[in-house]
């Protein structure tokens, strides 16, 4: 029934007020960032026992709050399921959606959204029981696959099995939670989602070691933050928050070295920390916007390792998400 209420809210919001183009001002006035997040995915967005949100996407919301409000804790996290997330952003319930969301052309155009960049290059994979002795996704002919509703995953799955002339039995659930539970109970042979998600979900199974993630990656899943279409200023703020985190890593500025960076004479670093130029003001923020992000949250690499990489239980390799000069494809335009 939440479905109906959000849709009705969207209708009500659309019926009475014009589309707001003033998100940055609204966030500053409110003194709080409303961030649409995943509430159930370890490594990306999950509240802990004390109710404190942690994760890679959560860090990104905190980075925006640090840049705009100078306080990484002034974020209200709104947990959203895959199928409710776009309606929540369209209706203005959240200011930004950072919920491991794949950037596709139809979402960029017909949903009235803009993706601000890619904070995680991902691809879809499969998890199966070791006991099945399956070594490749191509051996899954006739398998029952549990999947979450309203995802690109759901579409890729049908594409992949169709393209390889394999029989498929999809069992679709509204949330990842229910899909994983059903897989764990033996309802399905395989569970499919983005590879990063598979590592996170595997930790929640009764016996994580009984399950194996298959080597095939069957799709491109560039995950990124999204904002409403038609608010260019806010779009810029969110876009450059990600670029600042990437540029910081490239310039070797981390939360530990930020104080030294402030004293640096390197012109690139001076522009980054705001001791030269007025790049922060141009964004509608303050000179030290990037310093706040790095001091309070950290650079891209720090956030990655802490939440999903070697410093976390997930231990995901950086792979494609390495910086462009380290063998990956993460590349941010310069601040100047």
């Amino acid at each position, binding site marked *: *029934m939440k*479905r*109906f209420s*959000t*849709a*009705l809210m*969207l*209708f009500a919001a*659309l*019926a*009475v*007020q*014009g*589309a707001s183009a003033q998100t940055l001002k609204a966030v500053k006035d409110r003194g709080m960032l409303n961030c649409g997040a995943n509430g159930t995915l370890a490594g990306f967005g999950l509240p802990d026992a004390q109710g404190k949100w942690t994760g890679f996407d959560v860090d990104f919301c905190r980075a925006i709050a640090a840049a705009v409000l100078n306080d990484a804790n002034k974020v209200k996290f709104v947990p959203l399921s*895959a*199928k409710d997330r*776009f*309606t929540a952003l*369209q209706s203005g319930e959240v200011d930004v959606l950072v919920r491991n969301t794949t950037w596709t052309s*139809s*979402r960029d*155009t*017909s*949903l*009235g959204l803009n993706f601000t960049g890619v904070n995680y290059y991902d691809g879809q994979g499969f998890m199966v029981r070791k006991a*099945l002795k399956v070594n490749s996704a191509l051996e*899954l*002919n*006739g*398998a*029952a696959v549990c999947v979450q*509703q*309203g*995802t690109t995953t*759901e*579409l890729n*799955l*049908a*594409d992949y*099995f*169709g393209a390889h002339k394999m*029989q*498929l*039995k*999809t*069992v*679709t*659930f*509204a949330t990842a939670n*229910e*899909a994983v539970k*059903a897989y764990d*109970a*033996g*309802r399905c*042979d395989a569970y499919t989602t983005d590879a990063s998600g598979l590592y996170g979900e595997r930790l929640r199974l009764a016996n994580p070691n009984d399950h194996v993630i298959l080597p095939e990656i069957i799709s491109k899943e560039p995950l990124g933050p999204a904002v*409403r*279409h*038609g608010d260019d200023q806010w779009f810029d703020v969110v876009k450059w928050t990600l670029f600042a985190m990437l540029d910081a890593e490239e310039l070797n500025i981390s939360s530990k070295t930020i104080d030294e960076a402030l004293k640096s004479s390197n012109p690139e670093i001076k522009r980054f920390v705001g001791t030269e130029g007025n790049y922060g003001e141009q964004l509608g923020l303050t000179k030290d916007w990037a310093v706040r992000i790095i001091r309070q949250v950290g650079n891209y690499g720090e956030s990655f390792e802490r939440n999903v990489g070697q410093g976390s239980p997930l231990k995901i390799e950086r792979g494609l998400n390495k910086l462009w000069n380290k063998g990956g494809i993460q590349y941010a335009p310069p601040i100047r």
Partner: protein
Amino acid sequence: MSGELSANSRPARVAYYNDPKVRSIAYQALLCAIVAFLIYGAATNAIENLARARIASGFGFWNATAGFDISQTLIEYSPRASTYGRAFWVGLLNTLLVSAIGIVLATILGFIVGISRLSRNWLLARIAGGYVEIIRNTPLLLQLLFWYNAVLKALPGLRDSLVVPGGLYLNNRGLYLPKPLLETGSGLVGLGFTVGILGAIALYLWARRRQERTGQQTPVFWLSVGLVIVAPLLIFAAAGFPIAFEYPQAGRFNITGGIEILPEFAALLFGLSIYTAAFIAEVVRAGILAVSHGQTEAAFSLGLRPGPTLRLIVVPQAMRVIIPPLTSQYLNLTKNSSLAVAIGYPDLVQVFTGTVLNQTGQAVEVVAITMLVYLVISLFTSLLMNIYNSRMALVER
């Protein structure tokens, strides 16, 4: 004088704006105009804002390729070839299937429990009472999750399937039954069956008239059994058993072939039937209690046994009280079937306002269509029940 008199006898002329009739029409017209204006304003504003926010609108998505798979399809459906429109029909049929079977099961169970609760057998009445109170006072969503997990947990995995000789498999992927395939000659059996049913109806009507006329009873039940079941079976045997079965085959991952009943369907059907039956039981109990005890006593004093008393005297009168609230229970069951979304049964809400809405992003259109569909289903159910109600109503002579 006479002219003055006739002038006085005419009703006093009042200004039209003081005429209560004109006034009330004017007020109602004004109210309608305001409501229409508000709806029009909200709709045009929403369309304008959707366009400004660059959110696609309109119903063009209906014929676009769906691209996602659905686990239970009563009509042909394939992810690559079928449209969102087709997915809508698949979801709607799944909703109607579970609602229709659910209504039948809930009615049967509800009547049994409702009558049991009034039984003079202490244990039976208490068990029925406990059932009603427990089921009625816990949320349906929790019950559905309970049934789903109970079904999944209790059943064995694919490799340890329960195999019943005769080609029946049961595991946590579902129940698999042999699928009958009709061969030449089976048409005769079908024909015999149809003729048998028509014959049984004719027999029933004839027997009733005979009893009204002469008071003599005919063994309608046994004759009907003969007509409907035994006669077609004889034809079936005479034609040399023209039927084959497609047996389920255990494969590496799944069982293929045969008829498949999904655990999601079973859990939803169980949950809805058992939940609604508790309410129907109360409706039935109230209806029976509404029939005055004098009716029962009168029947007993005429020498009727308790069974016929219930069937011929109490229930027909109770039905007049039962039908209206029973209708709303049927409507509730149909609407509650949308909770399927929680346990992965592909009903209309799960398929259409779930996946289709999300893949197209057209929340306003999709939700509007879905609400309209539930409205139509509910109004149609009400219509049928109202027709039934007017037939059962007291005919005064």
